[in-house]
């Protein structure tokens, strides 16, 4: 699994921790990360102060990619509200921001379902040039009504995504969207949806979509079955159903799917497929990523990331 590691590159640039002492010496070539780990938090340092220092730098306008890790006391339950508010307020100083990551922290820093997110709707109006938004953790998350002309990539990593957020995604007006990645998660950790909440994403909306990820899902078999019912979707190159609880039943359904046959690649790594399921998928004649298959324990199957 390559999840939950420190992010090394974002928005096409290597990630640097922002140090006010050094300033934005690589403003044009690096993505900058702001985080307050436990020790800095105990020393009363604030993520909002670090951001204020960053946007005061003479080269702030050159920054295109920003990551926010622990915003200070995240593991104590502090939510993303203040930092999102600060990012929105600083928007005029970051006119070229195209990539934003909210919640770049590992499970060692804070369990994904314990990360307290917030209503991020103001970001969309504040950053009209934003192309990539990545959010880790969906507890307390709301996107609000989304209308955005530039957004190409939207990722929500979650241990359990609420149907309310999925509805906000379905209703989003994002005509340029190419990459949509939702980690649906486990019903013990916030997933409260049904197949009907995600099935519409499989067949329509977002005309330019090239990549669709409905990952880390305990209803991966149902998603596979639903995908088998829809016609081939022009433009969709990759379907990513990895990290879930798919069995050979789902693989069999996908193997008979017209829409799957039209893909360039199908990603089902880290599910519960056996050799039979993998053989069925091989008949599709497309690239299949199927590494790291799991075995159920006493009939129980778990998504890769829940807690």
């Amino acid at each position, binding site marked *: *699994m*390559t*999840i*939950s*590691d*420190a992010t090394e590159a974002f928005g096409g640039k290597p990630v640097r*921790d922002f140090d006010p002492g050094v300033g934005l010496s690589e403003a044009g070539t690096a993505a900058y990360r702001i985080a307050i*780990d*436990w*020790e800095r938090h*105990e020393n009363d340092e604030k993520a909002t102060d670090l951001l204020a220092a960053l946007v005061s730098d003479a080269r702030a306008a050159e920054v295109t990619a920003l990551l926010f890790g622990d915003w200070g006391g995240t*593991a*104590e*339950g502090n939510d993303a509200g203040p930092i999102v508010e600060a990012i929105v307020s600083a928007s005029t100083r970051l006119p070229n921001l195209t990539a934003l990551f909210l919640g770049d922290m*590992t*499970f*060692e*820093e804070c*369990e994904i379902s*314990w990360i*307290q997110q917030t209503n991020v709707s103001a970001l969309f109006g504040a950053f009209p040039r934003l192309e990539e938004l990545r959010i880790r953790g969906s507890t307390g998350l709301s996107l609000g009504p989304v209308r955005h002309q530039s957004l190409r990539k939207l990722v929500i990593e979650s241990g359990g995504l609420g149907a309310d957020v999925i509805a906000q995604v379905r209703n989003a007006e994002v005509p340029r969207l190419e990459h949509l990645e939702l980690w649906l998660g486990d019903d013990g950790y916030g997933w409260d949806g049904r197949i009907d909440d995600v099935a519409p994403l499989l067949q329509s909306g977002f005309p330019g979509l090239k990549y669709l990820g409905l990952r880390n899902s305990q209803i991966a078999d149902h998603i596979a079955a639903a995908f088998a019912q829809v016609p081939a979707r022009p433009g969709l190159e990759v379907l990513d159903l990895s990290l879930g609880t798919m069995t050979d039943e789902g693989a069999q359904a996908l193997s008979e799917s017209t829409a799957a046959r039209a893909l360039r690649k199908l990603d089902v790594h880290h599910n519960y497929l056996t050799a039979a399921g993998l053989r069925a998928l091989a008949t599709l004649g497309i690239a299949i990523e199927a590494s790291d298959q799991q075995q159920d324990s006493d009939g129980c199957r778990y998504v890769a990331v829940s*807690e």
Partner: protein
Amino acid sequence: MRDEDRAPLTGAALQAAVRDIGRIAGAHQSFLGLVEAMSRVELDASARYMNDPSEICLAFDKLRCQRHLVGHHVPVPPLLGSVASYDQLREQMAARRWSRVFIKLRHGSAASGVVAYEIMRGREQARSTAEMAPGDPGVRLYNTRRIRRYGDRDAIRALIDALAKEGAYAERWIPKVTLDGLACDLRVVLTAGKPTHWIVRASRHPFTNLHLGGRRFEIDALRSRVPEDGWAAVVDTCRSVGAAFPRCSYLGLDVAIERAGRHAVLEVNAFGDYVKGLVVAGRTPHDAQLETLWT
């Protein structure tokens, strides 16, 4: 709980606890036995040893050992101190505004009776290498290789209260750096006070011990994540631990590395020199020890 308040196991209860394989019981009593045995070794003028008996006893009292390291300017996770009970632990955590701690047996080894405990907004979770069976009173504790997760307050209270009776302490949970989605720390073997052997231990659990299914990585995998001066500081710390145990010819250290490059010594193991298959420059830790004896 003061040590002298802890009722020793005697007679039939002692026999039963000893025969109960995997049971965590009498941890403090076992420690007193070790101290007794070590003092006999010390009094035996003909005894030869590689590690000094009193320093071995120091390493087997983890709380005292951590405080000893602090005195030698070795970075360790901030200590919360002895755990008397679940309620007292919660009070101490609240006073320090801590939400994540590790609870360890003061006289435990091989990750026996360790708990990674976290609280947030009324929610709490404990993951542990101990499992519980009904006891009278309270619960009996057993070691398990399958990490247990407890999310219910009553269960967590029973677990922590039972560990407190065995003698436990708490320290801040230092978030470890991750590799391949696994939490990592270092096992470093010191020979004659210097770090000679290294291995990265990695796990999807907060516990990285290899016998609990932890994966191994070569040191370079982690080293590339740590700034050069941060790595030099780790080496310095290892030497400082060696200096804090001047009469031990070998030690096994567990060292946590943080994302920001900081590090902390989690534990000192007096018998921590055996790591299966660990060979550096053609030498096992035991080869390295023999060389120091010959020269």
